[in-house]
């Protein structure tokens, strides 16, 4: 008898993706397995790389604005807001109050629709089929408001540098208030399906733990950081677009596991509803565009502006050389940075949990690869 077995099965390398339905796009994960246990994983990304940062250098500031919507395409409004704020900072202008309030309304609606897409697909990955239908039903209502406002549902390009392109449509306030009235009850429905569900708890509690130290080490932000117990949200810490005027809380978790991240996002949707209601009720009148030159040439300089996107800190670092085109645009994508922690979260867990962990990070490959 040979000393070693005929087939050495101590380590198995398994390719997951890029065409795997639960990798939410074209993510390829190379898993190293010891039986059912994951001993390590490596992400292979870039399948959706379009060179957005290079395109930016060859477009004018205004021309580049629609491109940012194509990065995180389920939260296009947030992407647009971040870009507009960054260019406005570089140019030294500020959007008028009415524009800021409309921006807040649409961004929060977008946060809800992004979280809904996450919740539906995350539950679907784990094996709960129903929530995805519920979530898409309400997401549709949010998308209808976008469509009525600017004609697009996903890649909205809703904002312009210096304010808004369009005045609100007649029934925007009514539609938003109706949404705020309807939505919390629907969130109760999701919670009824999942929060106390034994299978859901069994599949999510204690899975993919990432504590606060790990989060800070990897630069992980957004709901992942908050679920680890850090009360940190850029809307509170470095308010932009008038967020300091609204009352809302930052939901946090304690254990930093998949279940806590679920609870945090559910609570965030409730808080977003609160913000929308306040913003609609106090919507100021006035102009919607600041005085922005027709040909935009920000003075020589650079700045880094970041916002709290649904997935974490979304930052834009823009360098201007006083020409019509940005000299350099760097996008700091939350999904890309958060995905780096996948290895840490997966180690020691089971293969089936990898699907839950990828889902809980809430990545959009359009943003990871840019």
């Amino acid at each position, binding site marked *: 008898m040979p000393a070693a077995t005929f087939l050495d099965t101590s380590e198995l390398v398994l390719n997951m993706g890029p065409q795997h339905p639960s990798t939410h796009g074209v993510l390829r994960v190379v898993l190293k397995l010891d039986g059912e246990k994951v001993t390590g994983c490596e992400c292979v990304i*870039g399948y959706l*790389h379009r060179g957005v940062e290079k395109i930016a250098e060859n477009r004018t500031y205004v021309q580049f604005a629609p491109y940012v919507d194509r990065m995180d395409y389920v939260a296009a409004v947030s992407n647009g807001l971040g870009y507009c704020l960054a260019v406005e900072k570089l140019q030294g202008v500020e959007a008028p109050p009415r524009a800021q309030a409309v921006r807040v309304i649409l961004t929060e609606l977008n946060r809800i629709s992004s979280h809904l897409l996450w919740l539906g697909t995350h539950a679907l990955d784990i094996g709960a089929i129903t929530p995805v239908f519920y979530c898409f039903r309400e997401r549709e209502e949010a998308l209808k408001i976008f469509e009525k406002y600017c004609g697009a549902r996903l890649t909205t390009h809703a904002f312009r540098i210096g304010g808004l392109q369009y005045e609100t449509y007649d029934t925007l306030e009514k539609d938003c208030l109706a949404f705020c009235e309807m939505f919390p009850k629907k969130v109760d429905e999701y919670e009824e399906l999942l929060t106390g569900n034994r299978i859901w708890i069994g599949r999510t509690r204690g899975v993919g733990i990432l504590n606060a130290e790990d989060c800070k080490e*990897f630069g992980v932000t957004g709901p992942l950081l908050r679920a680890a117990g850090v009360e940190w949200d850029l809307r509170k810490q470095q308010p932009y677009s008038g967020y300091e005027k609204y009352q809302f809380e930052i939901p946090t978790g304690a254990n930093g596991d998949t279940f806590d991240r679920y609870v945090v996002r559910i609570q965030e949707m409730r808080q977003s509803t609160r913000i929308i209601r306040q913003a609609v009720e106090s919507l100021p009148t006035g102009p919607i565009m600041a005085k922005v030159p027709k040909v935009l040439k920000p003075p*020589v300089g*650079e700045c*880094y502006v970041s916002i709290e996107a649904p997935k974490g800190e979304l930052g834009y*670092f823009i360098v201007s050389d006083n020409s019509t085109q940005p000299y*350099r645009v760097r996008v700091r994508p939350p999904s890309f940075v958060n995905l780096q922690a996948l290895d840490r979260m997966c180690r020691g867990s089971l293969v089936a949990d990898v699907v839950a962990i990828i889902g809980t990070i809430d990545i959009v490959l359009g943003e990871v690869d840019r």
Partner: protein
Amino acid sequence: MAEEQKPAAPPPPKPPAAMAATAWEGPLPEKLKSRFGDGIRELLSYRDQNFLVAEPPAVIPILEFLKIEEEFEYLVDITAAHYPQRVKPFELIYVLYRFPPHNERIRVKTDLAEGEKPATATAVHPGANWLEREVFDMFGIAFEGHPDMKRILLPEEWQGHPLRKEYGIIQQDQRWVQENLHIDSGQ
């Protein structure tokens, strides 16, 4: 005969405009200056955002000092910019943040010559791993001591670094495209 039309003299070339940055003042820049001396070239502020320009060898000690003694424990981003007309054409930018109660964001910048290898920040901030790989992928700046210095977004065999200024907008690695995608051009 009317006097000959003289061609208008071309306007003298404008000196390249510089960023209208002001000095960054306060207790933190004082501390940095006294600690690192010549390692820090400038401490500046533009549009209420503070940044410092450091000599390349001083960058990692500065990041370490900022993390351990000043609580800048969150490395937000590492990126670069290419200025081909400069003697040292690459600028490397680190964005750092410290959590409340400080709630402060600063940038650490340095410049690099072509082929110069900066030290990796992964020992100080493990999250620098992918960010440095992306800088390598896009600019060809290789980090010394990085555990896994390879491309991240583009295929590993790809030739060229797209975010360099000489790389054209529709340029691509023709050979890679033909060999792997079996088409003449991706454009």
